């Protein structure tokens, strides 16, 4: 199936990536080719196949949910592009 411009606009909105018209055009072309390639899979009948979600035979392990902050708040904040005291700063979301 070929991907149209509106689809690219829609998924770029979902993915939170702003695109200009030129980018939308080139991505529409690229994605159409890629999906044509991907859709070779439709040749295969997989009705009776179980999907493989993990190649490991054992179930995922989980750890105890304990607070372990490492006491490195200052260092963590150093990587933030915008901060104030001990907070991350984002554009205003409520008036």
């Amino acid at each position, binding site marked *: 199936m070929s*991907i149209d411009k509106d*689809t*690219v606009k829609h*998924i*770029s909105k*979902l*993915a*939170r*990536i*702003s*695109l200009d018209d030129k*980018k939308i055009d080139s*991505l529409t072309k*690229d*994605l159409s*080719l*890629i*999906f044509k*390639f*991907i*859709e*070779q*899979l*439709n040749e*295969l009948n*997989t009705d009776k*196949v*179980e*999907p*493989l*979600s*993990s*190649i*490991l035979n054992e179930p*995922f*392990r*989980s*750890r105890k949910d304990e607070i372990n902050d*490492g006491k*490195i708040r200052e*260092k*963590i904040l*150093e*990587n*933030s*592009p*915008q901060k104030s005291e001990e907070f*991350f700063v*984002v*554009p*205003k*979301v409520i008036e």
Partner: protein
Amino acid sequence: MSDITQKSLTEIVRLIKKKEIKSLEITESFVKNINNGKKLNSFITNCTEDALNKAKKFDKSPNLETLLPGIPIAVKDLFCTQNVKTTAGSKMLENFVPNYESTITSNLWNEGAFLLGKLNCDEYAMGSSNETSYFGNVINPIAENTVPGGSSGGSASALAANLTPTTIGTDTGGSIRQPASFTGTVGLKPTYGLCSRWGIVAFASSLDQAGPMTKTVEDCSLMLEAMASFDIKDSTSINKKKEKYSKNLTDNIKGLRIGIPKEYRIDGMSKEVDELWKNGKKLLKDSGAEIVDISLPNTKYALPAYYIVAPAEASSNLARYDGVKYGFRSTKDNNLTEMYEHTRAEGFGDEVKRRILIGTYVLSSGYYDAYYLKAQKVRQLIKNDFDQSFKKVDAILTPSTPTSAFKIGEKKDDPISMYLNDIFTVPVNLAGIPAISLPAGTDSNNYPLGLQLIGRPLDEQKLLNIAYAIEKKVNFTQSLNKWWEK
């Protein structure tokens, strides 16, 4: 002493253990090559000063009982290194300084090694030519106009040009094996779960696996021994006893059965690659192995399935880059949503955007069953193919790549032809099994070509042994004219 940087890791370790050379001499030699090797663009961050200090410190009270005593190592810039910038080849992480160390690099440092620098790679490990890095193309030391492969292109280039004695990469669809093949080096993708993923910048979590890139198979066994460990911090880490791959390495492969899958003989495969493969078969026969024709019928569907699974997981993993807690942030931020959209538009390169959009689409409402679920079913079929084959054979021999290293820019504008590079490597990641690429010949340009051996889960020792047997018979050497020093 002759140029130490041309020696294998194993040989350097032997010399240091016999106290015939000091860590500082070794480190100085590699630092000199790094300073002369800037044209390759294989380094993003240089840690040479720190490395020289660590070497001096090591020499003061050397502990020679470790696997990598006093060895400087540059690593792919996808491994988080404490207090050293980790960029993943992206503008998004240009100034990111981790507060923690990845398990894999910790393991290396615990074995006596120290950091020499961070190596260039395709952005977020998405690419097969190292042309998607925000920090520029890496050049293959074999010729000035060729790509080193990708995504671990900086690792392969630095290793082949003797800028580091050994290195590590990550392999999601061939990112260790393809660049190894393009540069005449050895690269191993271990069984999924053998090497911890903790502290590695995530691409596609069900496929990502770290592994060694080395000059020889013996070096590869030593590095894997140092890297592999059970890690409680990686929920998919396999809990098993550590193996002594280097001590148990042998070229005696008599009686092993090696499968040749007919589906890997693809249309348009060059005569040179075909000859290489035939020669590999012959060498294995000469070593006493038995050659068996096998079939992996769903091979052709591996790449299309991969281009659903990998982008889907990537779109989810890369959702974390929102310009708030770390990383790049756009100044166009009139409101929160716009801030996200511009941060991600300006912070990610074209290939990363392409894959995030593919992933977002295949996971979006109404399309999940048609794409993602379908791909998971195909993944099961591909795994079944391997399971069936491994009832008959101990390992599988294929070429590593359909061609040798290509020219910079040659495939950049055609995503499909770029993706086809990984046609022989991708099935292994989907099945979670181990595979190694080793140099086994050259083409008419004298560019290296690699052979790939694929094994059963956790059967790395056997793969290393078979590779060792081939390596001894091939006796591959490459003499580079060091154009980058001119």
